[in-house]
Structure formats: structure tokens, C-alpha cells
């Protein structure tokens, strides 16, 4: 499973993307695991209201399942246009 980070989430974690073992559960479960890894992850995921998530390139919410997903991306609210 590929995890991608964009904008300040990428900068705070220090990586544009990484490969993790496939897992079940929800986005929220994945975030709990990431937070527990290192301080930079805990800092990036400190305030979920400042974050958005896409599973397989579809915008969704933190309770969405990641079972069978190949990509999960975390980023701040979008500022296109």
C-alpha cells in the first residue's frame, strides 16, 4: 500500500510517499499506527481537522475502510483555482 503526503504534510513528515504493508481497518486506524511511529508523524497528524484524505484517489473521510486500497494520501484542504 502506497501512502502519499502533500504540501505541509509532506514537509512535516519529510517524505513524499512510502510503501507500507497492506492492512485492513479504517483510515483512522492507519493514522493511529503512523502517529505511534515517530514524533514527525505525531506532529503531522496532531490535528485531523486540518487534514483531508483520499483513498485510491477519491476524497473520503477518516472512517473510510482501507481494506484492499492501493493508495492512501494525506494533505491539507485543497487550494486550487
Amino acid at each position, binding site marked *: 500500500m502506497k501512502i502519499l503526503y502533500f*504540501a505541509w504534510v509532506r514537509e512535516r513528515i519529510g517524505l513524499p510517499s512510502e510503501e507500507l504493508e497492506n492492512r485492513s481497518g479504517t483510515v483512522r486506524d492507519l493514522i493511529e499506527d503512523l502517529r505511534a511511529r515517530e514524533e514527525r508523524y505525531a506532529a503531522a497528524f496532531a490535528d485531523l481537522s486540518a487534514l483531508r484524505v483520499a483513498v485510491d*484517489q477519491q*476524497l473520503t473521510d477518516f472512517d473510510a475502510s482501507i481494506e484492499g486500497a492501493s493508495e492512501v*494520501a494525506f*494533505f491539507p484542504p*485543497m*487550494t*486550487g*483555482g
Partner: protein
Amino acid sequence: MHILVQQAAFDMGAQVNDFTSAQDASGAVVTFTGIVRDLPQGGLQHMLIEHYPGMTEKALTEIAHQARTRWALDDVLVIHRYGMLIPGETIMMVATASAHRKNAFEAADFLMDYLKSRAPFWKKEITSATADWVGAKQADEQALNRW
């Protein structure tokens, strides 16, 4: 329907001419152009636009499809750039073609509201002393409720 996500600059006039001349049933073409604006206090050197390759094209296509479902449109064009831009450069444009102007105006307005908050782009404003990610505005999110 044409969705272009690119680093390169584009010629707004040529794009509008091509888009317009390809329409034979439309009586109205509406265009919007977004330009890199300097900060209120000045000093903006660059605007860096990051995006999510793959999802960006999908999100823009989906937004354009929604517009075509809601309004009687003959065609839609969206061009959005990414990378390092300078003040005054064109960031993006949308064009809508319809038989009558009301559909073309409303659909262009809808496209802009949605692609501001639902297309995966992020802007960073860079001056000689600072580099700050642009925060999403509450008003941009609220604008979606109009539709």
C-alpha cells in the same frame, strides 16, 4: 471535454479561439482565468503549485462531468498549471460553451467553486523571507453550498 494539467505556460487567447471555433451549436462561451496575484504587502517572488498526479485529472474530470449533468453544455475546457510561477502568470482557465449564456456563466462559476476546494492543488507563497502554504478559506468551502 478537455482537461489539461500541465507545468507549461499556455496561450489564453489561442485556447479561447480554438475552443470557440470548435463549437458549432453554441451561442455562448464563458471563460475564467486565474492569475498569480502579489501579496497585499507586495514582495511575492514565486507561487509554487503542488498537485496529486493522477487524482488531479480524475477530480477535474469528475467536476466537469457534474457540470455537464447539471447544465446544458456543449463543451468544457479546464487547464490548470503546477510548478513554480511568478506574479502575473496565468495559473488556470475554464471555458464553457452552451446555447445560451446563463448556462455557460453558471457552469463556469460552479466549476471554479468546485475546483478551488475539491481538486488536489496546493499553493505556496514564496517571498525573500518567507514560504507559506496558502490556507483554504472558510468562504471557499461555504461557496459549495450554493450548488
